């Protein structure tokens, strides 16, 4: 099966776009990542990742409406494409399958 690999940061950005739904654009994604993972993500890093994901056809983008708050500049709004969705699903399936195949005695000692 041919697969497109995603970097870890790319995966997080892609997931965040999915979480944010209609309102995903640079600043909101960067804020959300910080909120969700606790680590800060610079705007430039986020933009670079979005750019790459778009090149891989996992994101689709359109320009939003102009608003007053950004000096009248439009936002670029991102949505996850079908390919992006499938990739996320695949990653999740693979991870789950691997988690499931860990035998209990080898399970890392996590206190319950």
């Amino acid at each position: 099966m041919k697969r497109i690999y995603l970097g870890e940061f790319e995966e997080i950005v892609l997931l965040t776009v999915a979480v944010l739904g209609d309102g995903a654009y640079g600043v909101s994604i960067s804020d959300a990542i910080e909120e969700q993972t606790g680590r800060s993500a610079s705007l430039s890093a986020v933009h670079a990742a979005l750019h790459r994901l778009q090149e891989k056809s996992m994101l689709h983008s359109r320009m939003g409406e102009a608003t007053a708050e950004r000096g009248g500049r439009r936002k670029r709004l991102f949505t996850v494409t079908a390919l992006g969705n499938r990739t996320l699903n695949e990653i999740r399936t693979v991870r789950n399958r691997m988690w499931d195949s860990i035998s209990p005695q080898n399970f890392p000692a996590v206190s319950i």
Partner: protein
Amino acid sequence: MPKNPQPPQWASRLLEWFCADHLLEEIQGDLEERFLRNVDLFGEQSAKRQYAVSVLGFIRPFALKNEKSPVPLYTQIMISNYFKIALRNLLKHKGYSFINIFGLATGMAVTMLIGLWVHDELSYDKSFKNYDRLGQLWQFVTFDVEKSSYTVLPIPLAKELRTKYPDVEAVSLSSNNLSLILDAGEKKMERKGNYVEPFFTDMLSVNMISGSKDGLKDVNSVLLSESSAEALFGDEDPLNKIIKIDNKASVKVAGVYKDFPFNTSFNDVSFLLPWSLYEATNPYVKSVTDAWDDNSFQIFVQLKTGADFEALSSKIRDIRMKMNNPPSYKPEFFIHPMSRWHLYSEFKNGLNTGGLIQFVWLFGIIGGFVLLLACINFMNLSTARSEKRAKEVGIRKAVGSVRTQLVMQFFSESLMVVLLSFILSLIIVQLSLPLFNEVAAKQIRILWENPLFWIAGLGFTLLTSVISGSYPALYLSSFQAVKVLKGTFRVGRFAAVPRKVLVVMQFTVSVTLIIGTVIVFRQIQHVKNLEVGYNRQGIIEVRLNTPELQGHYDELRTDLLETGAVVEVAESVGSITGSGGLTTNFSWKGKEPDSRPLLMGNNVTHDYGKTIGWEIVQGRDFSRNYSTDSSAVILSEATLKLTGFKNPLEEIVTHQGKPLKVIGIVKDIIKESPFQEIKPAFYVINYKAVDMIMVRLSEGMPVSTALEKVADVFRKHNPSSPFMYNFVDVQYGKKFKEEERIGKLSLFFTILAVMISCLGLFGLASFIAEQRTKEIGVRKVLGASVLNLWGLLSRDFLILVTISLFIASPLAYYFMNKWIEGYVIKTDITWWIFVGSGAGALLISLLTVSFQAIKAALMNPVRSLRSE
């Protein structure tokens, strides 16, 4: 209301400058949104800082403006494909590629060498700051009918120029370039230098390392060049050290100057002594301070800015002739500007006839031709090869190449090959420079830092690649794909005509060069074989440079003869191989009153004739048995011819008012340039005015032992100076230096030209042989012999070479005849030179072609016919 906070302007500008247009809006928007939030959270300062940091963070590939984006992707791929195909083609045909690249590189290298040489010649003396304003005084004098030119002048002329001519800024007298012994106590050596006036250092913008330029104002001082200071004192500080000059005067080192650059007229001036010292130590100089007719010194002038050499020359021309009692030799003074010293130094009968500039032209033209040969080769081979690629063109067209793309392809291919050759030629030049410098007596290096060099080199590369690439690019790309692929395409009958013309041109140049070189060498050999009139083997000459040697002839002679290493000893004025004692003050019975021929008067001792081994034709040699010989004279054959004496042994001649009895006639002795007519000469006994001792070593003893014994005698008599001597035959050989250098250089160029031509012929022959593989196969099957096939393949080329022989011979005759007319003593240009050179060229080309022809003829026909 608080002012609206704004992000830092420089950061926004920077972003606008580097960010790709289609991303700018969103990025700017995001940054500003974040900025406004940060202002609320952390304050304006911190927000501004973070804004700037974020902008810098966007300097990433994805956000940058992409300059290349307008070029479609496929074009990029195609261009890299062109280079790939070009490289594959080169590697597939290694032989051709080698011939092509190496041939062109050799041609380029030769041209580069010549170009560097020409550049060096043209920039001669230019390193002097006052280059445009410096000049040297010359004079034309009329002895008999012709005007001769001299650089030696009377001393009072300098004062006259200094005081009466406002255009002159400075004047300096100078001695000739003298060899003197510098004695620094521990180390002694002979070096060349001049006595000059103090202003000389300013005129030549002498570059002082230590001490002062004005050092020459003090009588007992010397300025040393850096190299001679190092040779004398090593690492010690030379300033204020004492040096003895010729064991006569002691002088203090007042300064050290940087050696004059090698490509200047003063490169052999390794010390400067004050003129005042010259006057103080040399009574002769002192005595002629006001003598207008004693021409022994050089004068250099510096003009004021804007002054004209020509105008001033015409003003000073008749200074002497306007005075009372003008001399009979009618001096005409003029100033020769520094810009013309090196290249235009020859005068004939009062007119400048050029000089080295002729060689600059000659070699420039040869260089152009060699380059042309290499280019012809390159074009010939690449066009020949490109016909093979008609199929490739067809296929490219069939899959959608448009014509411009094919044109691009062939141009980029030839550019690549030419660039490779250029790089290779740089390497060749760098490696061959040491040898070239030795032959050409130059110190040339590649002008890496000169933009002109690169412009010329790369410009030429571009030109060659366009010219050689134009045939395949423009012609092949016009083929119709269908015809080529169907195989109905034929290269036109006349496609080979330009190639043949080029081969003829190539060989015309080569054969002309061969003939020229043969004639140059014959001329040198002819002059070398002339009888010099004495036996120059085994004689050494020692200059009588110190008071200890002068005037002690008898003691020296006895001691030298006692060693057993010496056959005979004599003294004379000047070397046997130099001209000296030129005089017009010589008359005889029956001389025309107006004629003033120039003769060489030689002061010699009794044993001169025996020492050098001259040949007495009539009469007898000098002898101690006749006390009357002190007023006797021996004439040379040329003098005999001049005077027209029927019975010379009964004649009396007058030299400087003194009557001299003719006692003998000797064969002419070549003292000056052997390429010129021999001047009439006469010999008189004079033990006082002599400055050179010549010693004939005995033949029975090894030279080194004999020399050691002679050296001992000299050290005994003259302990203060090193023993320095010259072999007469070596000195004589130096007279051919210039001609031999030309000979060597032209030999070098000829070999290269022939080599390049043959390389091209070789390539073409192998190409033709390959093209006719099938034909040869069929012929063999039908019974053709190897000899038949060899003739078939070689004939075409030999016809071309023969044609070029017929063009080259008259050309070479014309040019070489002109060259040889410049000499008085000349060899004849005979028919066999042309026949021989032609036969040689034919033989070489036949060998070149035969290799391929025989290889093709020996091939098994089964192989060549099976391939389809």
